[in-house]
């Protein structure tokens, strides 16, 4: 069944801020096997000009997943069947590095829903700001909903 196009432009603000802990950055860096000291060593991060350890460029995926249940992907009215979903594209735009100690706020928006052959593309954008309201990063995810375009067999 096609996705509900009325949902293009809908915003999903997240009420509870995301607190970035040093240990979750350490765990993420370990999982990607990256020994860069700026992820784990506060003194090294400070020598590079940061208040505290910084996060890898794709770390904000943890934030998107943390709040997936509150966003468009989990909204039954949007009509996404997660078993049909594959990740199509991902983009991170960093206005500044994410650091341990950051308290981040998130607004998730349905940017677009469109057909691509028999599939539909769901494009969502996450705008991430810090405790002072300053921009930290924008993430754009394109999910492919396989076989749900109108007129297709599914």
């Amino acid at each position: 069944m096609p996705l509900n196009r009325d949902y293009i432009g809908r915003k999903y603000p997240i009420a509870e801020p995301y607190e970035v802990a040093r240990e979750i950055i350490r765990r993420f860096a370990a999982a990607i096997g990256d020994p860069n000291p700026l992820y784990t060593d506060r003194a090294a991060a400070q020598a590079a000009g940061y208040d505290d350890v910084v996060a890898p460029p794709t770390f904000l995926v943890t934030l998107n997943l943390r709040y997936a249940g509150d966003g468009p992907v989990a909204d039954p009215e949007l009509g996404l069947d997660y078993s049909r979903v594959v990740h199509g594209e991902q983009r991170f735009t960093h206005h500044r590095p994410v650091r341990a100690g950051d308290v981040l706020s998130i607004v998730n928006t349905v940017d677009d829903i469109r057909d691509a052959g028999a599939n539909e593309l769901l494009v969502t954008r996450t705008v991430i700001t810090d405790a002072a309201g300053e921009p930290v990063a924008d993430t754009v995810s394109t999910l492919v909903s396989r076989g749900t375009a109108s007129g297709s067999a599914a």
Partner: protein
Amino acid sequence: MSASINYDDVEVGDELPGRTFPVTRASLVAYAGASGDFNVIHWNERVAKSVGLPNVIAHGMFTMAEAGRVVTDWVGDPGAVLDYSVRFSSPVVVPDDDTGATLSVTGVVAEKLDANRVAVDLTATVEGSTVLSKARAVVQLA
């Protein structure tokens, strides 16, 4: 920010040091825990095959993270990566053995931008097949 590469020392066409990354079942379990992505197709062969996949596949975001290491290793400071985007063109299939899959990543300076920024294009393959396309990072150099 403290990029270790000077903009003036870089030319379009310069190659970044490429490298290979092992992708094993253990990598995927660790990544699932660290990222919070527990999708069953990334760790359960029975379920992966039941939805038409050849085997367990890697998280696309894991592949993206590994490819990004070619950029952060080059520039030194991960905070110098201003923008990073990829298209997931085909899945990385991870067999249940001790070697897993081998991801090969290369990078080349594609464009010199203003304000000491450069665009780096990445190529990510497994056994010669492209797994990421349109993979590009915009990096702040010194």
